[in-house]
C-alpha cells in the first residue's frame, strides 16, 4: 500500500494521525484511501470520528421530542421522563380572549361537535390521511406546543443552536413530517434534527435489540418487527384508541339510556334532546383511562361482556365466596363503579358493573363478536395482527420477536391489555403453528405428508394443523430449524450457516431465550425514553438533517429510503447523500 511510505515521508501527517487515533482501529480506513488527497480526507474523517469530545459532546444538551397525533412529549436527553406531555386538545385552539374554559360551569356543559366530524378530530394534531389535513393549522398547533415546551418546561435562556432528536413513526406521511420539521427548525433554532423511529426507540427502551413492537396508538395500531435495530416488517390496524373510546362512548350511552328508561322520574323533560345528549370524547376517554380495563383471555371467552343484558344481570348476582386471589375479576362479585357525568343533562352518576367496563376492549380491540372472515385487512384484531406479523417474518427473526413482544402506545396502559394480547397470541401460535393457510379444505388429507416433512425436529408432531395442536409443538419450534411450510426445494437443503447469526448466538448471553421461543411480553419505557437513552449514549442517528440543508432542499437530500433508525442504512446519513 502506498499509505505507509507516504506517511513515512510526511511526518506531519503521521503526527496528525497518531494524535487523533488511539490505536489500530482507524488504520483500515486510512488504507482505503490511496488518493493524493489523503491527508485532507483523513482530516475530515478524524474530525468526524476522531476526538472523543469534539463532535459528540459539543452541544451538551439535546432536546428530545416524540410526536404523535395526540401528544407531544418533550424533554432533555438522559432523563427518564419527558419534562412535559402536551396534548393537542380543542382547548388549545381557542381564540385569544375566549375565556370560556374558566367559566365555573364549563365542565357541566357538554360541547357538541360539528356533525360529520369524526370522533375526536379536535383532539388530533394530524391525521394520516393527509388529504384532509390543514397543514397550516397543524403547523400553528405544533408551534404553540413546542413554544410552550421550550419556554415553560425547558427554560432555555437563549437562541443558542441545539440538537434535537425527534421520534416519529417511520411511516409518517411526508407532508406531515415536512411540516413538523419545518416548525421545529423555525421555533427552536435547532442546528440539526435527528430523526428516530418510535419503534426503534421503544426497542431500545425495552433493553432489547430485536422485538415485535405493538404500538397501540390513537388512530392505528402499528405492529413493527425490529431486528437488530432495523425495522423489518410492519402491519397496521385501525383497532386502536379511537375505536376503543368510541366503543366506550357507546357503552356509556347505552347505560345512560337504560338508566333513563329505568327511572323515568329522573329525566326532567329532556326526552326531546335525548338523541343529542351523548357522551363526549373527553368523557369517554376519561372513563376509559380511569376505570377501563381488559379481561384476560379465559374470562373473556367464558363471560363475553358484550351483551348489556348479561352484564346487568351479572351486576345483581352475588357469588363472592371465591378467594380474592382469583385472577378473573368476573368470577367474584361484581362491584358497581360509580361514574359521574356532570355534563349530562341532568347531571347523573352512572353505576356500571365493573366487568361492563372491559367490554369496549373486547369489542374494539379483539373483535370477539365478529367472525374473522368479516374483517378487512385494515381492521384486524390485535392478536391476529400480531400473529400475522410474526407469520410474515423470516423464521429466525420470528423466533426472536416472538419472545420479545413489546406493547407500547397510550392504549397499552389499559390494565390487562398487555397480558391479554400476549396470551391471545400464544394461543393462536399454539393452535395454528406457523402455517399461513388456515384451512386446507379438501386437501387437508394430504397434509401430514407435506407438512414439514423436511424437518426432523417436527417429525414427532404429525397432527393436522387445523385442529388444536399439542402444546409441546410450539416448544419444538426452533429458531433456526423452522422455515415456511411452502415446499420449495431450497428449504430441504440444510440451512446455510449464517456467520452473523452464529456470532450473535455466540456472544449472546441469552442463548436459552432464543432456543426455546415462547411468547413473551417485554415492557418498554416508551419511545421518548428510548430516544433519551439513545441521545444519552451519544449515538448518532441515521437521518440527521441540518438546518441549512433543510431550508435548501427539504427532505430531498435525505436519500431514497427515508429510513429512520436504519432501514437500509445506506446513504442515509445526510452528509454523504448531499
Amino acid at each position, binding site marked *: 500500500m502506498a499509505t505507509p511510505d507516504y506517511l513515512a515521508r510526511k511526518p506531519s501527517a503521521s503526527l496528525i494521525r497518531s494524535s487523533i*487515533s*488511539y*490505536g489500530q*482501529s*482507524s488504520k*483500515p480506513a486510512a488504507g482505503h484511501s490511496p488518493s493524493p488527497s489523503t491527508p485532507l480526507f483523513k482530516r475530515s474523517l478524524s474530525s468526524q470520528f476522531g476526538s*472523543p*469530545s469534539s463532535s459528540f459532546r459539543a452541544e451538551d444538551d439535546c432536546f428530545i421530542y416524540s410526536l404523535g397525533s395526540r401528544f407531544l412529549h418533550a*424533554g432533555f436527553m438522559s432523563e*427518564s*421522563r419527558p419534562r412535559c*406531555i402536551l*396534548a393537542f386538545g*380543542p382547548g388549545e385552539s*381557542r381564540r385569544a*380572549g*375566549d*375565556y*370560556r374554559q374558566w367559566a365555573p360551569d364549563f365542565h357541566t356543559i*357538554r*360541547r*357538541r*361537535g*360539528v*356533525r*360529520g*366530524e*369524526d370522533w*375526536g378530530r*379536535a383532539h388530533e394534531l394530524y391525521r394520516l390521511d393527509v388529504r384532509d389535513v390543514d397543514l397550516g393549522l397543524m403547523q400553528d398547533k405544533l408551534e404553540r406546543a413546542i413554544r410552550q415546551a421550550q419556554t415553560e418546561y*425547558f*427554560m432555555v435562556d437563549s437562541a443558542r443552536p441545539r440538537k434535537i432528536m425527534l421520534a416519529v413513526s417511520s411511516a409518517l406521511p411526508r407532508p406531515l413530517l415536512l411540516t413538523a420539521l419545518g416548525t421545529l427548525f423555525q421555533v427552536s433554532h435547532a442546528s440539526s434534527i435527528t430523526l428516530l423511529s418510535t419503534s426503534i426507540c421503544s426497542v431500545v427502551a*425495552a*433493553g432489547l435489540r430485536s422485538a415485535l413492537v405493538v404500538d397501540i396508538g390513537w388512530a392505528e395500531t402499528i405492529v413493527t418487527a425490529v431486528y*437488530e435495530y432495523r425495522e423489518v416488517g410492519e402491519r397496521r390496524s385501525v383497532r386502536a384508541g379511537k375505536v376503543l373510546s*368510541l366503543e366506550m362512548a357507546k357503552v356509556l350511552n347505552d347505560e345512560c339510556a337504560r338508566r333513563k328508561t329505568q327511572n323515568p322520574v329522573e329525566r326532567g323533560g329532556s326526552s326531546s334532546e335525548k338523541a343529542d345528549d*351523548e357522551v363526549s*370524547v373527553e368523557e369517554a376517554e*376519561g372513563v376509559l383511562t*380511569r*376505570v377501563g380495563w381488559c379481561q384476560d383471555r379465559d374470562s373473556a371467552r367464558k363471560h363475553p361482556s358484550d351483551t348489556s343484558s348479561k352484564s346487568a344481570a351479572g351486576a345483581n348476582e352475588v357469588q363472592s365466596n371465591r378467594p380474592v386471589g382469583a385472577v378473573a375479576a368476573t368470577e367474584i362479585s361484581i362491584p358497581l*363503579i360509580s361514574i*359521574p357525568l356532570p355534563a349530562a343533562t341532568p347531571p347523573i352518576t352512572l353505576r356500571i358493573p*365493573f366487568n361492563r367496563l372491559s367490554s369496549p376492549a373486547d369489542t374494539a380491540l379483539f373483535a370477539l363478536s365478529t367472525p374473522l372472515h*368479516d*374483517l378487512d385487512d385494515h*381492521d384486524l384484531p390485535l392478536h391476529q395482527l400480531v400473529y400475522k406479523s410474526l407469520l410474515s417474518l423470516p423464521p429466525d427473526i420470528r423466533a426472536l420477536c416472538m419472545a420479545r413482544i413489546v406493547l407500547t402506545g397510550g392504549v397499552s*396502559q389499559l*390494565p390487562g391489555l398487555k*397480558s391479554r394480547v400476549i396470551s391471545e397470541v400464544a394461543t393462536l401460535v399454539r393452535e395454528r403453528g406457523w402455517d399461513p393457510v388456515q384451512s386446507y379444505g379438501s386437501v387437508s388429507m394430504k397434509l401430514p405428508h407435506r407438512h414439514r416433512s423436511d424437518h426432523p425436529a417436527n417429525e414427532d408432531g404429525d397432527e393436522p394443523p387445523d385442529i388444536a395442536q399439542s402444546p409441546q409443538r410450539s416448544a419444538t419450534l426452533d429458531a433456526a430449524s423452522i422455515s415456511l411450510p411452502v415446499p420449495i426445494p431450497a428449504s430441504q437443503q440444510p440451512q446455510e450457516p449464517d456467520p452473523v447469526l452464529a*456470532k450473535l448466538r455466540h456472544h449472546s448471553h441469552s442463548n436459552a431465550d432464543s432456543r426455546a421461543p415462547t411468547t*413473551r*411480553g417485554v415492557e418498554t419505557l416508551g419511545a421518548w425514553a428510548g430516544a433519551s437513552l439513545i441521545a444519552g*449514549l*451519544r449515538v*448518532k*442517528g*441515521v437521518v440527521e438533517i441540518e438546518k441549512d440543508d433543510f431550508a435548501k432542499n427539504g427532505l430531498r437530500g435525505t436519500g431514497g429510503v427515508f429510513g429512520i*433508525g436504519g432501514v437500509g442504512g445506506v446513504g*442515509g446519513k445526510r452528509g454523504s447523500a448531499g
Partner: protein
Amino acid sequence: MNWFCPNCLFEVPSSTVKSEGNRCTRNCYNCPICTAPLSVNGLHQEPSSYLTPKDAAQPSGPYFLACPYCNWTTLDIGIQFDKPHKITEQLSRTKNGGRVVSSPRDPEKQRMGSLSRDTPPTKLQEPPDTSPQEPPDSDELFSNLAAFYKNQLGEASGTDQLGVGYTEYGYGSPSNLARIMNMYGGLSYTALKKSRKKPAPMREAQDTNEGLHLVSSTSEAATIRRLRDQGWDGTTNAEQRLAIPTNNDARFTDDLRPVATLLPTKRTKRCRTCRHILAKLESKLHSTRYKIRLLALNYIPTITLRGLLDVPSSIPTALTLPSSPSTTTSAAFDYQTLSPTTPTQFLLTLRNPLFDPIRVTLATPATPSQRPAGKVTILCPQFDVGANTDVWDEALTDSTSGKDKSGRQGGVKDAGSGGASVGGEVAEAGKVWERGRNWTSVIVEVVPGTAGSRDAGREYSFGGEEVKPGDGDEEGGEDADVLEIPLFVRVEYETDAAAEDSGVVAKIGREGVEKRVKRELAYWCVLGVGRVAG
C-alpha cells in the same frame, strides 16, 4: 435571566435551573389533586392552627404536607417528613408508602460487586425489599437501562486490545463509535466497512437490574383488582397525571406525588419576523411594570360592532371578540337570537389610536365562508377618522365627555357631533352615520344565514356497523350558530417620520425638516355579531 418561584418568590438563577430543573426545590408543592399550594404541618398540631402562620409556634414531631383546600395530605400516600425544611430532599428519598428509595448507585454497585468477587459490596444497607410483586418503577428501569447500555458499550471497548486504559477510553472514541453506529443502523459506508471486523455486538438486557422488565399478568391482574376495589374516586384524571412528570403514570390517587411548583420567568416577546422586542417587563421581581410595551392595539383602529337599535350606553372600547357579544347583551337588542334571513343593521365604529387622522377602507368577502353564512353590506366602505388628539380638545370644542354621550345619542336623530357626517332616520349608502373626535361610525347591514344549515355529515362506519357521528370539534359544535363576519381593513395615514418610535425611519428626518411619510396598513379581522336563532 432569572427565574422565580411564584409561591415563595425566591429567585432562581439560570444556572441553578439548568442543574436542578425547572421546579422549585424549596418547600413549594402543589396539591396533586386540586393544584392548591400545600403547607407544611406538624403531625401533632392542632388542626385549627393549620391556617395560622406556622412560624408562630413551630410544631414538633413528624411533618407532612397538607392541602388547605381539599384536605389531601402526604399522609394519604404514606409519606411524612422528619424536618419541616428541605422537603424536596426528603421527598426524593421516599417513595409512596414510606419506602426508602434505593439510590441509583446501589444496583450498579451490586453489579460491580458481583462482577468482581474479591471486593464485596461495602455496605448492603439496602434491604432486598424489591419484592417480586412490586414492579420497578420506570425511573429505576431507566437508570438500570442506561447503566446497562453504558456498561455494555464500555465492556465492548474493553475487549479491544488497545493500549489505552479503561478510564481514558471514552465512549466517543473512534472504534467504539463506529460499532455503535453499526448497531444502530450503520452510517457511512466507510464506517460500516470499518466496523465489519468488530465482533461482539452489545447484548440485550437480561434482567431487571439491566432494565429488562417482562409483562406480568399477575401485576396486571393486581392492578385490575385494585381498580375494582377503589373505583372511580381512586383513579386519577388526565390533568393530574400530566401535572408533573413523576405523576405521568400514576393510575391511582395513591400513586400521586406532590407537584413541585413550576418556575416562571418574566419573558420578553419579540416580533416573529424582525426579532424586534415588543414587550419586556422590568427585571425586578416585585415590579409588574413594562420596560417595553409595543402593542398592536396602539396602532390599529379599535373596531366595535353594535346593533343599530341597541342604544349604546357608553363609547365601546373593547375590540369585539367572537364570544363577547354575550357579555354585552342589552335589553334593546338581543345578540343571542338574531333572526336569520332578516336584514339587520349594525353600527360599526372605528376608533383611531394614532395622533394622525386616518383614512379607512373596509371590505368584506363577496361570499362569506363562515358557517351561518351571513351577507354583509357596508353602506359606507371608505371614510376618514379623526386624529387621537388630546382629550381636552374635544372637551373644549364640544363639551365634557359625559355630554358627548348624550350628544351622540341625539346624533342619531340629527347631525353628528363632528358635524361633517349626515345622519338621519334612514341609513344612506355612502354616508357616514356619525363621527366624533377620533371615531367614525358607519352602518353595516347583515343578513344572517340559517344556523341549522349544517350538513348531515359522513357516517363513520366501523366493523360493518353504522356509528353515528360523534361530537368532535368543540368549537364548531358549540359555536355553530355564532355569526362572525370577516372584514378587511385598510388604513392610510400620513405621519411625521421623526415621530416614528423606532430608529428604522429616523434617518429620513435627520435634516430636521418635518417630513411627512405616508403609511399604509392592511389586515383581515373577524367581527363577532351574535348568535343566530333557530
